[in-house]
């Protein structure tokens, strides 16, 4: 699926005084949005599309941003919604395509490089990374979302709550369940 393009009209919709602000936000947020989408969808093209769509929506909604959260959290909220929509959109059978094109956990773990430790510890660490990726891939959608926001993006519980629209307690509950599943997978691997 082709990504939407940011047009001159979109840029013009941003108040002139805010164009520079938006540009700096877009530059700062794009890697984070892309990383979250990539970890969620495990598909580079899909992640790129989400990242681009996310910035377009942020650009178009710039005037409506109420600043009751940080800009980064607001952009991540858009990204979370886009990823969720993609996973749920069965009309275009995106999920099926994602499952077919998703990079397997083994491949992600194999490309992981950690300079420290012996060869044996490197192998052990890669096995652990693979186990976490596998566990994350099998989590229910909400658990996976909060897990990735926490353990990939280092977001605080309140930020995750703002980005996902959940209450802080709900976020914590989902995280506990996700961590339990991850520990179970690590225990099985050990």
């Amino acid at each position, binding site marked *: 699926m082709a990504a939407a393009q940011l047009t001159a009209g979109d840029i013009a919709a941003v108040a002139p005084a805010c164009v520079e602000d938006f540009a700096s936000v877009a530059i700062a947020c794009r*890697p984070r949005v*892309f*990383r979250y989408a*990539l*970890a969620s969808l495990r598909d*580079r093209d899909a*992640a*790129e599309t989400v990242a681009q769509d996310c910035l377009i929506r942020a650009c178009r909604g710039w005037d409506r941003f109420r600043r009751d959260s940080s800009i980064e959290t607001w952009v991540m909220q858009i990204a979370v919604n886009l990823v969720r929509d993609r996973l749920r959109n069965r009309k275009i059978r995106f999920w099926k395509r994602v499952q077919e094109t998703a990079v397997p956990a083994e491949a*992600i*773990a194999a*490309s*992981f*490089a*950690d300079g420290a430790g012996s060869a044996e510890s490197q192998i052990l*660490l890669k096995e*652990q*990374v693979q*186990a*976490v*990726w596998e566990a*994350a891939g099998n989590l229910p959608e909400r658990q996976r979302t909060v897990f*990735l926001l*926490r*353990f*990939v993006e*280092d977001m605080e*519980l309140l930020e995750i709550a703002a980005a996902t629209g959940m209450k802080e307690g709900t976020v*914590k509950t989902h*995280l*506990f369940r996700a*961590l*339990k599943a*991850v*520990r179970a997978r*690590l225990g099985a691997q*050990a």
Partner: protein
Amino acid sequence: MKPHLSERQMSEWSLGERSPEVERHADGCHSCRARLIRNGQALAAFRQSARQWSERELGAADVWAVEKARPWMMSGSLRWACAVAAFVLVFGGVSVVRRNHPPAPPDSAVADALLLKQIDTDVSQAVPDSMQPLLTLVSWNGAQSN
């Protein structure tokens, strides 16, 4: 013997919520301590792997976007389509131009045409040149008499 850490306590530890009670237990319980360390290492390595992968793919995506923006970097089928279109434009254009502007006749054809015109003029004359003024006079007079 103290019971091992619960799943909840393990999760709280992973989220950075480390109560003195759990820390005391971890200090004295080799099994729980090993689990906590292994979980922490695995999650840190997972974070690192996600970031490495993203940086790699983001770089590739940017390269792909730049190549896509280059007009001369076309796919094979697009190149072929452009070649065919150029061929049609060039040769189709030539035939159209020929149809609208017929080729100029050669010099010999021009000379032949002039000669033919002169012959036509000569043949169409009813009387020789020497009698031409008389014929004009007669015709003129006849017309006058009418």
